[in-house]
């Protein structure tokens, strides 16, 4: 392990002040599940790091609360904190389900929600769930503050809009209407401590038997976690039945190929995604019947 200075700011202002000094190579660390393994494996994402800024002790970015009609999750909230939170349990069940599939208890006790997506790994488990909830993220530096949709923040694999002097402070999620139903599905090689091969998140509102609104997102099978706007448009207004779900499942395969191109793994992965998506849609709608 290289010798690195570690700073532990106690307030957001202190942290932003530290980050504004760009004479040194600074990296933010929270749970360390990415940073410590990255340093150990000499990943080029952490090469030449001189200072680590530990953000675990900044109260302003840890609490989960209702703010301006949204649910606002502090960026440094751990997955265990999110899993146990009453607001999340009541209002964001799909996020809760995604969080429960992450790593293992030791990892969830340390790893944070912003840490899950700031490196923009394609397999980040919370990303599809956050995308279907239309999450926006707040980003601050010493002299700027902005809020953008998560989908815009995520630019390309391992690339985001985050500048060197910035930190993600909050994840804001509009409270979804109680009429929405949804589900999250993760496929890994085993149950715990598995890197996702496929993740899917779906949120849907029905009017009688017709799809009034549907939001669909996937991870791991696309270069980065992503929504499927064309698929959502295609589905809107259609009647919920087995044939339509089959058509929709087949179409998600086409959309994924558009995004990723054909890969060596497509031949077995695509039918798996299609079948998982079909089953997820069936499970969701059966539950309300």
């Amino acid at each position, binding site marked *: 392990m290289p010798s690195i200075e570690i700073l532990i700011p106690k307030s957001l202002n202190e942290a932003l002040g530290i980050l504004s000094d760009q004479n040194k190579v600074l990296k933010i660390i929270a749970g360390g599940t990415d940073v410590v393994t990255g340093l150990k494996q000499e990943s080029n994402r952490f090469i030449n790091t001189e200072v680590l800024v530990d953000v675990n002790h900044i109260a302003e970015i840890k609490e989960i609360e209702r703010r301006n009609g949204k649910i606002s999750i502090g960026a440094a909230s751990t997955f265990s904190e999110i899993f146990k939170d009453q607001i999340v349990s009541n209002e964001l069940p799909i996020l809760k389900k995604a969080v429960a599939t992450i790593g293992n208890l030791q990892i969830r*006790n340390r790893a944070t929600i912003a840490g899950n997506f700031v490196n923009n790994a394609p397999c980040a488990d919370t990303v599809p769930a956050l995308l279907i909830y239309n999450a926006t993220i707040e980003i601050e530096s010493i002299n700027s503050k902005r809020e953008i949709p998560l989908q815009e923040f995520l630019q390309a694999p391992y690339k985001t809009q985050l500048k060197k002097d910035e930190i993600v402070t909050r994840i804001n999620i509009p409270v979804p209407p109680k009429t929405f139903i949804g589900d999250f599905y993760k496929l890994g090689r085993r149950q715990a401590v598995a890197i996702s091969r496929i993740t899917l998140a779906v949120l849907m509102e029905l009017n009688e038997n017709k799809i009034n609104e549907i939001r669909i997102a996937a991870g791991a099978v696309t270069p980065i976690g992503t929504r499927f706007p064309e698929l959502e448009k295609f589905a809107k207004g259609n009647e919920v039945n087995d044939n339509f779900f089959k058509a929709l499942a087949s179409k998600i395969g086409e959309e994924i190929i558009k995004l990723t191109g054909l890969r060596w793994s497509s031949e077995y992965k695509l039918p798996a995604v299609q079948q998982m998506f079909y089953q997820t849609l069936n499970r969701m709608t059966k539950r309300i019947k």
Partner: protein
Amino acid sequence: MINLEFILNGKQITVETEPSIRLLDLLRDKFNLTGTKEGCGIGECGACTVLMNGKAVNSCLILAAQIEGSEIVTIEEIANGNELHPLQKNFLKYGAVQCGFCSPAMVLSAYALLEENPNPTKEEIKDAIAGNLCRCTGYKQIIEAISESAKELTTR
């Protein structure tokens, strides 16, 4: 080098250390607490589990400076002198220790579970130890030992 202050197995400690060594190495090399094992070193096997402020964490993913002001408990603190903790007794009684490499961490994960949830279901036990790999694969005995310990501790 920094002067690090924290509570280790109930004792207030000040130690001079490199800030970016892993908690795992600090415990093993500076304090000779070798019950904390290194398996994978990347947070997958759980052999390095310790308790940080009562929660099970991987000591291979925490850097020394990050534990400033925290309370760390290792396996060495679980027995009461020469009297084994009920979890340790039951691990022996139920044959839950085979090669033993995962056992200290497995006991700590179980300990943290029972502190938070004294009457866990089998599924809750499985979830609590999902981050502790036993390559001898004696999970059945481990789950039995934890289950039995929960019963003993709650009926005392």
